[in-house]
């Protein structure tokens, strides 16, 4: 095991796959010579050269179009959309083209590609560089949606996404890039569509994603230490495919279910999981499901306001205490 930062794990995952497969190529704004604005692709240009690691103009439709055209003709491109907010300027490619082409062509066209993007808030960038938009992608049939919370998962899930024959939206959390964690030595490939139980508890289950995972864990520790409440924390990791079995097993055991979501309230990923739990596990529940989300507002920039807007460990603790009687 080696300790890597979340951002170094991105480059490590890409390098691992580029070494074994010549068809893997990368493109995006500032990803090559500059190593990425978040420094997540440092060293790739030096290692694999300018034909495989390409800087593009500021042209998100060109980036995703190029990735799609390359994927349908034999390559496995990894496209970077610098900030996930920018997906909105190339959403046609994501929602209408990449997601639907296999289906519309009756399976004639395969699109083994990965769209990596810096997602989420906490960086005081304001409302257009801070959104959590994984729920946008989740709403579209034909896209796999992954959002890792640890360096090990970054490497393992990214490798799995690159090897996957379908298009994968890979949401990296900007506020996690500097975090560190143990990453298995040697080749590391995880499995898409699997959730991870980060903490076992007996009183309630919290499902979280991305930056909300460490916050849920911090909250769970506080609940245990200060209130004697024992929480299971599930890192959902993959919204599509969704590992309902792991979530259901935990909820059945604890009888109480909370989601912690960074996306604004309406149609957040937790709403879908909550509806599944309500439909299929209703009689196992001891209390109403509670969703803890960013309120339905654009994100403010000032540190004090942003911190109050995105769910914090404190808000998670307070909400749980209020609802657990």
């Amino acid at each position, binding site marked *: 095991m080696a300790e890597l930062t979340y951002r170094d794990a991105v480059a490590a995952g890409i390098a691992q796959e580029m070494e074994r497969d010549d068809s893997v*190529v990368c493109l995006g704004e500032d990803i090559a010579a500059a190593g990425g604005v978040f420094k997540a692709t440092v060293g790739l240009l030096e290692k694999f050269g300018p*034909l*495989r690691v*390409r800087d*593009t*103009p500021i*042209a*998100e*439709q*060109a980036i*995703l*179009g*190029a*990735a*799609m*055209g*390359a*994927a*349908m*003709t*034999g*390559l496995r*491109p990894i496209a970077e959309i610098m900030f996930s907010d920018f997906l909105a300027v190339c959403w*046609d*490619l994501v929602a*209408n*083209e990449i997601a639907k*082409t*296999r*289906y*519309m*062509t*009756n*399976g*004639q*066209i*395969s699109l*083994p590609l990965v769209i990596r993007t810096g997602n989420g808030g906490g960086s005081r960038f304001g409302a257009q560089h801070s959104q959590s938009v994984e729920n946008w992608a989740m709403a579209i*049939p*034909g896209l796999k949606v992954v959002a890792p919370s640890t360096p090990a998962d970054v490497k393992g899930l990214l490798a799995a996404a690159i090897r996957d*024959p*379908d298009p994968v939206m890979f949401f990296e959390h900007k506020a996690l890039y500097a975090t560190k964690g143990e990453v298995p030595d040697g080749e590391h490939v995880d499995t898409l*569509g699997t959730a991870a139980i980060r903490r076992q508890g007996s009183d309630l289950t919290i499902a979280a994603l991305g930056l909300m995972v460490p916050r849920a864990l911090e909250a769970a520790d506080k609940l245990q230490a200060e209130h004697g409440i024992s929480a299971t924390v599930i890192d959902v990791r993959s919204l*599509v*495919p*969704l*590992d*309902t*079995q792991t979530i259901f097993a935990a909820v059945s055991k604890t009888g109480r279910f909370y989601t912690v979501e960074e996306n604004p309230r309406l149609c957040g990923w937790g709403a879908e999981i909550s509806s*599944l739990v309500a439909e299929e596990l209703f009689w196992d529940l001891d209390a109403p499901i509670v969703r803890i989300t960013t309120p339905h507002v654009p994100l403010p920039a000032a540190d004090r306001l942003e911190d109050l807007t995105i769910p914090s460990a404190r808000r998670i603790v307070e909400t749980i205490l209020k609802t657990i009687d």
Partner: protein
Amino acid sequence: MSIERSTTTRKRSEPPEDMVLATEQTAAGLRPRINDDIDATTRLALYRSQFEIRVVEKRAYDLFLQNLIKGTSHLAIGQEAIAAGFGVSMKPGDWSFCTYRGHAHTLARGASMTGVLGELMGRECGLMGGKGGSMHLTDIDKGVMGSYAIIGAHLPIAMGAAWSAQYRGTDQVAVCFFGDGTTNIGAFHEALSMASVWKLPVVFVCENNLYMEYTPISAVTPVKYPAADRAAAYGLERILIDGNDADEVYRTAKSAIARARAGAGPSLIEALTYRHHGHSRADPAKYRPTEEVEAWMKRDPIPFYRQRLIDLGVAEPTILAMEEEITRAVDEATETAKASKPPGDELIYKDVWANGGWAWRN
């Protein structure tokens, strides 16, 4: 290859002088101006492709009236010479990227007429089993890498395929067809720009039929020739051609494809043409001046090219035999498609993912 046109004021919708001249020469029985470089076999192939597209498109129109084709459809009647000129120039392995007005380009690559008509009719025998419909014809075995119905989307995609050819060191070329209206959307600019910077083997073909849907392109475009006049912005040669003359299209296509194959980068070609029908099934095209329609109907690419074949010494019975053979084949394809079953219900859940399924949870 670049044809400079006079920039003197002329009513926008009139065909350029050269094009009128070419027609008049032919009508007068004179030998058309440039005709020594295309062999007879190629010329017959160009006519065959144009005629086949015309008959299939007319058949599609009839099938609409019989309510056997539902939804919408965008016919290329009047624009066949461009699809044919490129189709005959491309090699197996080259890629076509088409628009929602893509029946013509799909047929021009040799896709089955039964497959095309079956897809339009929503039958099991359709190219995509009925899952795509008229606006998304795809036949990858013939190099037809899809028909794209969101204006501009496929320009970056074609550029990406060309990137893949360049990276893998094959000599494949991507050809991307689009209308004049596409030149005003952002994806056009993004694709042209990156293709030129990366010197990719892609040929962008703007079929300027003078109308973006229901509006004259001149009313919404700051330059006279929406693609050609913008080529310089991407460091590309200005190429403006008569899109109703299959020979001219063929020559231009050969040259641009050869340039792409040789690694010299992309081309942007503007081919002037005219659709005989409205934008789509719903459009009777009443917004077009009668004189304009009449002028362009005289320039119908198919009788024009037929006359050229005769002028060049092809016996009329040879042409008639070809026409009859094609019409028979379209009749047969129509009957086969009509007899084909509707798609099975299981198709709804097929091929969302590469494993053939649609599961989003365990």
